[in-house]
């Protein structure tokens, strides 16, 4: 019951979250903001268009959007955004989640290379590069969490947290910063990529979508908004898991509480993201490694801090 509600909610409000971020950005850059529903409109429009597919695009190219969407929905089903007793969550812990995202990334890159256009391949190359730099950092963040709560499956993490009302461990701060940096990188936001631009030489994510149109494009866009949403939820589960309905909680009240908490967190997070994005400038593509190395370093620092301060390791 939680399970499907959660998935439905994720699918529903992911584009809204995206829209909310762009709205905040527009405000901060005092542009006139598009309405919140803008992304829904765009999806509808795309779904109704005729698809134009390159002459010798293979099945891989046409199948990829569905795979992307599928993986993201599955991820949403695993991440405890509202509640923790998710039967699906048994299927994959956080590491498997990273694997799931990697699958999506690989498929997208392959699809981008399928047509054989210069930009597609370039985008794929950059995307994979960012990917293999971001994953170690993310893993280190998870390591922190594991050291704290002795589990890599997110629902159990949240339960653990709820079980003992500890003060925030100092290592968490490092980890959180690292996580935010990874989140920006993985979701093609400034400072690594610019979701708004179509300036060929700088784009990464967009470059891979050049050949997509209509329903395929719609699915990809939806998937990427879901990805951002999922990442946000992972962040919440790791660092501010308040309000998530833990084990045994049932009935309407916790549900409403959880939804409210989620919406509130998303609002704040969206605003914060927009703020970061507007404040920072896009990096040259070869500065990206340094950026992600920084993230990795922070995560490791968190780890060491934790081990040094000798918090109880095996919870």
């Amino acid at each position: 019951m939680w399970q499907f509600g959660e998935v439905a909610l994720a699918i529903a409000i992911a584009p809204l979250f995206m829209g909310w971020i762009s709205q905040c950005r527009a405000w901060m850059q005092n542009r006139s903001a598009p309405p919140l529903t803008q992304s829904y409109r765009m999806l509808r429009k795309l779904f109704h268009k005729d698809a134009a597919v390159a002459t010798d695009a293979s099945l891989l190219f046409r199948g990829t959007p569905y795979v992307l969407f599928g993986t993201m929905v599955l991820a949403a089903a695993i991440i405890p955004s509202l509640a923790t007793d998710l039967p699906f969550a048994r299927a994959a812990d956080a590491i498997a989640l990273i694997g799931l995202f990697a699958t999506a990334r690989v498929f997208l890159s392959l699809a981008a290379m399928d047509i054989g256009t210069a930009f597609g391949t370039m985008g794929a190359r950059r995307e994979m590069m960012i990917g293999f730099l971001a994953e170690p950092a993310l893993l280190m963040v998870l390591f922190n969490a594991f050291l704290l709560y002795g589990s890599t499956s997110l629902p159990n993490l949240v339960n653990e947290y709820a079980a003992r009302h500890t003060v925030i461990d100092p290592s968490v701060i490092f980890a959180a910063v690292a996580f935010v940096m990874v989140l920006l990188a993985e979701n093609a936001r400034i400072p690594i990529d610019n979701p708004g631009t179509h300036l060929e030489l700088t784009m990464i994510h967009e470059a891979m979508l050049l050949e997509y149109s209509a329903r395929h494009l719609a699915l990809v866009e939806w998937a990427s908004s879901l990805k951002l949403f999922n990442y946000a939820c992972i962040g919440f589960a790791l660092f501010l898991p308040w309000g998530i309905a833990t084990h045994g909680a049932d009935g309407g009240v916790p549900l409403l509480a959880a939804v409210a908490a989620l919406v509130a967190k998303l609002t704040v997070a969206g605003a914060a993201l927009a703020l970061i994005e507007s404040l920072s400038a896009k990096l040259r593509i070869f500065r990206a490694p340094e950026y992600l190395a920084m993230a990795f370093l922070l995560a490791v620092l968190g780890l060491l801090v934790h081990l040094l301060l000798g918090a109880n390791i095996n919870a």
Partner: protein
Amino acid sequence: MNAHLYISGITSSAIAVPALRLLLIVVAFWIVLGLAGLVRPCSLRVVAHLLFPLGAAGCLSVALVAGVFLAANRMSEVMILPLGLPSLPFHLRLDTLSAFFLLLLGIAGTGISTFAAGYFRSGVGTAPALLCLQYHVFLASMAIVILADDAYLFMVAWETMALSSYFLVTSQHRIPEIRRAGFLYLLMAHLGAICILLCFGVMQGGSWQFTFDAMRGASLTPFWASAAFLLALVGFGAKAGLVPMHAWLPEAHPAAPSPVSAMMSGIMLKTAVYGMLRISFDLLHVRFWQWGALMLAMGLFSALYGAIFAAVQTDMKRLLAYSSIENIGIIFTGIGLALLFETCHLPLFAALALSAALIHSLNHSLFKSLLFLATGSVLHATNQRSLGKLGGLIRRMPWVATLALVGTLAIAGLPPLNGFVSEWLLLQSFLFTPQLPHAFLNMLVPLGAAALALIVALSAYVMVKFYGVIFLGQPREASLGHAHDANWLERLGLGWLAFGCIAIGIQPQIVLRAAGAVTGRVLGGAAVSLRSSIWTIVPIAPGQASYSGLILLLGIVGVVGITFVLVRFLAHGRMRRTDPWDCGYPWQTPRMQDTAEGLGQPIRHMFGAFFRMERELPSPSDVNPRYRIHIEDRLWRALYLPMARGVQRLADMAGLLQGGRLAIYLLYSFLTLIVLLVFVL
């Protein structure tokens, strides 16, 4: 898989036929097959359509027997053949460890032999019958290596393996590069073998007993135990392609015919892993955590090294060879970790790490042979090995492309395929390293996990490059226009391996159980707890982590299906074919695609320290600009060439001894006499 079929029934009713005898029969059968080819030396038909399929059947039966043995978790069987040295007849032994590797050999061998049946064409290089002989001797010797229970038989089989594979590698011996590669390979193999021999010499421990049983009993001082371990590490590392003993590997694998490369990379390297496990966990009874740390470091370094070099290759088989180095590195990382845990008395985690290593060996033997065989088909279809001349083959050879895609995703370590399972297990076991009792280890080793993550992600990068450049995009050469798809035998072989990748991916419980049988025997009872249904696997405790490839697969498939239907329903837009848009750039030629070098560029940029690069950039005013880059292994110049030069110098010095003047020769004798007289004076 085979295990899976049997697990249900067999465990209850353990059959009475001794598995070892069956295995030996198969081995003999292989040798007979090899010799049978010599009856009609040059008829390809007999060899291809009769002998190789029969060999495949042999492999299959080996897999079945080993699988049953593991499933039933039988007691180990021993046998003595009246051959070999007078005081030392051939001892054979089948226990769970050897059974696991025989299972590996059987499963991978089945696919490879089936493929080979369709692969070998007539006319080029060695006569088919000779190839058949060498091929099956190679198979048989690998099986014997795994079954051997005394040092002599082990060494004989080991060197026979090296020899037969050498002849297979040089089957195209008209080409000088191939001869050079073969020479380097055999040289390294021989040196490694001598190291292993010396290792056995150390372990014999007093009594001239070379049976493994006697070695288990031998008591060694820490110094000699470590000496044995190091010798073994060097010897088996040289065979496995552990950096810095890896130089032969990227030379020999591309040189060999594809089924042979598949066999070497898929199975032969694993025999080295087997030997390492046999010695460090079974024969040596004292172990030290330093060994584990060393192995862990070497493994991680090799893995990183292999991944980085694979990323910048422009020859598809070379790329795969380096990726083999990477995977071997991962396997050794697992073994090292297991040693660490085991020496720190954490048997459960040791079992976890060891299972990860074992399962990764099995997985690697599946997807790596799959990919090597796929390159073989590509080679036959296009006569191109250089990535710069391939592309767009997914349209010409859909079968190979599809099956290769499975292998690519699997080796990239993506769920829900098998590559992810082992890497996931390894990462899980890394999570427990903070519990190591050593101050520095428990801080440093977690970084190993990060390195591992980097390596896995890098391998994903490499594989995207591999697949994208060969099968996707536009054909880079006009000649690719009439590439043909693989024939049915080749498809069958590829299909078998691909099926293996998927099956292990969604049902890892089976192999996990098999690995459990091994770890249970090796680590004295410790095995990964299988508190897990057919749905999920739970390595340590359900609270900590669980994974289910099956659910993931079903989930993805389900969601994709539903979305597809919905989209079909709601979106009533047609689909029309046009030219690619590409930012409205009209003049597209295949040469404008990103090349293999281009895909390697970020890696070159980031890990420049690893390479020796020679670049030749075109000048802006160049009418037909040409860009050439040559990447070289630093270790080659840093390590191997100096060695060769040193030997040369010493040889020249020795040459001075023989100056051709008789008086000087007499002087030598004279001085020798005087010196010896002084000795006895």
